[in-house]
């Protein structure tokens, strides 16, 4: 805990960025974009090497004498790093603990596509004898299966990439690798980064670590396996990509801290595209400090991705994750005003979507009975009440931490500019990189096909007008929202995903509307490059609460016949606390704020199907 006086603390990055000049620069940039000069797609391997952003992290890790966990898989990255640094834990022991966990649980959880056991053992043995080189030294990580990994199959859970073995690493993974993290494996994901993780045919695969025997509880998507692996203790931390909530949704669904950085802060080179102007790589972590460690390694310029060039320097995220203590009380690192949109602490109204819901008109899902509809409505309402209470407590905690909380006015035409139709402007970008595949055989897209087809149908004039709307939305967020506050609470990731601004999800409580404990989350948005501000705010909250420290009760889950073992009362602290953000949502756009599934609780062997209507109604 830092005891620095507030005026001596270096300012966050959002104090270095002039919002008006940012917009002026945007206009100039756009001219370059539309004439095709500035943004040629990357074609060569990134010549990027990182030295962990120049931050070694030695001084900012916890004292290993204070680390109490006896089982290595329970450790945060920071805790494991402190033990490794001090010679109390070897990378081999840490890896073995996670491999044992994978062997025991992944048959049930299905978090991984590939476990690179031998490669990981070789790396851990090498690092066990090497000089400690920073907070990721020997830390086993799970990498989403749309990140290129040299020599390791990279499928994006799609038939299109079924046998693809890249010959270079994605820049974001290369930076983690250069910080001597260990590749533990590649994680399951929604096909091509849409929806929750499923097979090509839409069969659900990865389950939520908090409800492993109820596949109707979404793990969140599309970075489903990345979230489940970290939540269940199969990996120390993981990477994801976000186009429409795919980092923050699964983090919210599984009690993790997920950080979607500003567009350009982490390079996209070597990541299978979904929507090139909206794809953001970032970490899913156990807490804000781990997210800071991961982002510190991942962030930085890459000549192969022009969007990463000319940005403000990467700040010291580890320092930002250190709350300060004043007069014996934990306080926010920087004076911060938290903006709250109207209705944020009110109980959300019931919505019905998806197969059998009000909007369903056919497809593979069976029609929903009235009894089932009522059950779903009851669950939604109970969860909504818990979330409203949790948000109030969360805001109260922030006030205790020294934050100023203000209700903000949303910008003019917010509902229109962030609507489903304007969100659909991204679809032609989805179709374009896959034109040849679409021409070859549309069946290769499996259950995800629909948005790729729709992307071919949006005329160019409307596409370009949609791009104008994005700048208008950005202008109104920068001039409107951020003239009232430093960070803003959000209930959906879509608006900030549309305009490339950073988002951070974090656990704020638990509820038991389904009869067992599930996490609830907060979601905060920040100004351009204000990841340090977001990290500082969430880190202070986590210094005052323990929601982020709770783990799913998986001890019985892997035992034969143990399907009854994960239930209400077994998770610590269930029902208490604060809440909100997104419900356990679906994937790239699907599901934010929706109740997933419903229906009878099937056994672990019957995981259910992702109906094509889920894609059509939610995944566009």
């Amino acid at each position: 805990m830092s005891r620095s006086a507030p005026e001596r603390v270096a300012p966050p990055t959002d104090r270095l960025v002039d919002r008006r000049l940012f917009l002026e620069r945007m206009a100039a940039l756009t001219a370059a974009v539309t004439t095709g000069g500035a943004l040629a797609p990357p074609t060569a391997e990134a010549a990027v090497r990182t030295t962990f952003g120049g931050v070694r992290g030695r001084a900012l890790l916890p004292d290993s004498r204070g680390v109490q966990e006896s089982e290595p898989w329970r450790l945060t990255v920071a805790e494991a790093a402190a033990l490794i640094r001090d010679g109390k834990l070897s990378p081999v022991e840490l890896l073995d603990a996670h491999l044992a966990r994978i062997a025991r649980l992944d048959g049930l959880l299905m978090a991984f596509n590939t476990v690179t056991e031998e490669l990981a053992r070789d790396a851990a043995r090498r690092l066990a004898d090497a000089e400690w080189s920073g907070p990721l030294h020997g830390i086993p990580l799970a990498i989403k299966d749309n990140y290129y990994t040299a020599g390791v199959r990279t499928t994006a859970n799609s038939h299109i990439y079924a046998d693809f073995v890249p010959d270079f690493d994605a820049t974001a993974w290369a930076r983690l690798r250069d910080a001597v993290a260990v590749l533990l494996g590649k994680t399951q994901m929604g096909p091509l980064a849409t929806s929750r993780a499923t097979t090509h045919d839409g069969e659900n695969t990865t389950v939520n670590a908090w409800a492993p025997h109820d596949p109707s509880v979404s793990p969140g998507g599309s970075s489903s396996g990345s979230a489940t692996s970290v939540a269940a203790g199969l990996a120390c931390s993981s990477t994801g990509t976000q186009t429409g909530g795919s980092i923050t949704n699964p983090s919210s669904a599984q009690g993790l801290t997920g950080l979607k950085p500003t567009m350009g802060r982490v390079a996209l080179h070597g990541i299978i595209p979904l929507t090139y102007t909206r794809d953001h790589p970032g970490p899913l972590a156990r807490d804000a400090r781990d997210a800071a460690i991961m982002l510190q390694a991942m962030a930085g310029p890459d000549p192969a991705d022009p969007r990463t060039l000319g940005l403000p320097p990467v700040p010291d995220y580890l320092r930002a994750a250190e709350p300060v203590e004043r007069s014996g009380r934990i306080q926010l690192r920087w004076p911060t005003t938290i903006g709250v949109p109207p209705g944020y602490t009110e109980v959300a109204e019931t919505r019905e979507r998806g197969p059998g819901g009000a909007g369903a008109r056919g497809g593979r899902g069976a029609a929903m009975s009235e009894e089932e509809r009522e059950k779903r409505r009851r669950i939604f309402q109970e969860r909504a009440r818990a979330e409203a209470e949790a948000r109030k407590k969360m805001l109260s905690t922030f006030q205790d931490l020294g934050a100023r909380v203000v209700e903000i006015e949303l910008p003019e035409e917010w509902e229109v500019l962030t609507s489903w139709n304007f969100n659909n402007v991204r679809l032609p970008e989805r179709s374009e990189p896959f034109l040849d595949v679409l021409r070859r055989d549309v069946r290769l897209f499996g259950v995800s096909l629909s948005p790729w087809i729709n992307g071919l149908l949006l005329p160019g004039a409307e596409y370009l007008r949609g791009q104008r709307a994005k700048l208008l939305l950005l202008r109104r967020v920068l001039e409107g929202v951020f003239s009232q506050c430093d960070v803003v609470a959000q209930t959906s990731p879509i608006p900030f995903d549309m305009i490339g601004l950073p988002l951070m999800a974090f656990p704020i409580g638990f509820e038991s509307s389904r009869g067992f404990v599930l996490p609830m989350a907060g979601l905060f948005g920040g100004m351009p490059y204000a990841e340090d501000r977001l990290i500082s705010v969430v880190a202070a909250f986590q210094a005052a609460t323990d929601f982020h420290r709770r783990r799913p009760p998986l001890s019985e889950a892997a035992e034969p016949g143990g399907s009854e073992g994960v239930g209400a009362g077994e998770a610590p602290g269930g029902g208490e606390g604060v809440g909100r953000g997104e419900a356990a949502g679906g994937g790239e756009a699907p599901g934010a704020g929706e109740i997933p599934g419903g229906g009878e609780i099937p056994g672990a062997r019957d995981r259910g199907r992702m109906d094509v209507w889920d894609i059509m109604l939610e995944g566009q």
Partner: protein
Amino acid sequence: MPERRTRDRNPGQVTQERPTTDLSDEELNAYILTRLRAAGVDLGVLPEDDPDAPADRRRILASARRFLRATPPAIRGFAPDVQEVPPAMYPAAWSPALGREG
């Protein structure tokens, strides 16, 4: 930085609250299939109507019609000032921050 004119405060306007189109299903299907054929994309490899298949033509066309009835009209109905609101593909990627790198 030039002074903003009053009209810049509200450069967009919604001309249709609930965008619709009066094209029939048959007309939209013809448009969709012609556009796809022009792009070299063949939906004919999909089953016509098979609830057990990952995708079939009935569902794909239904989704496309819904998209066409909603999204292009909504976007067309929004009219930003073209002089003041350029089309921005990467809204948050560049910055005039004091410090630079890369």
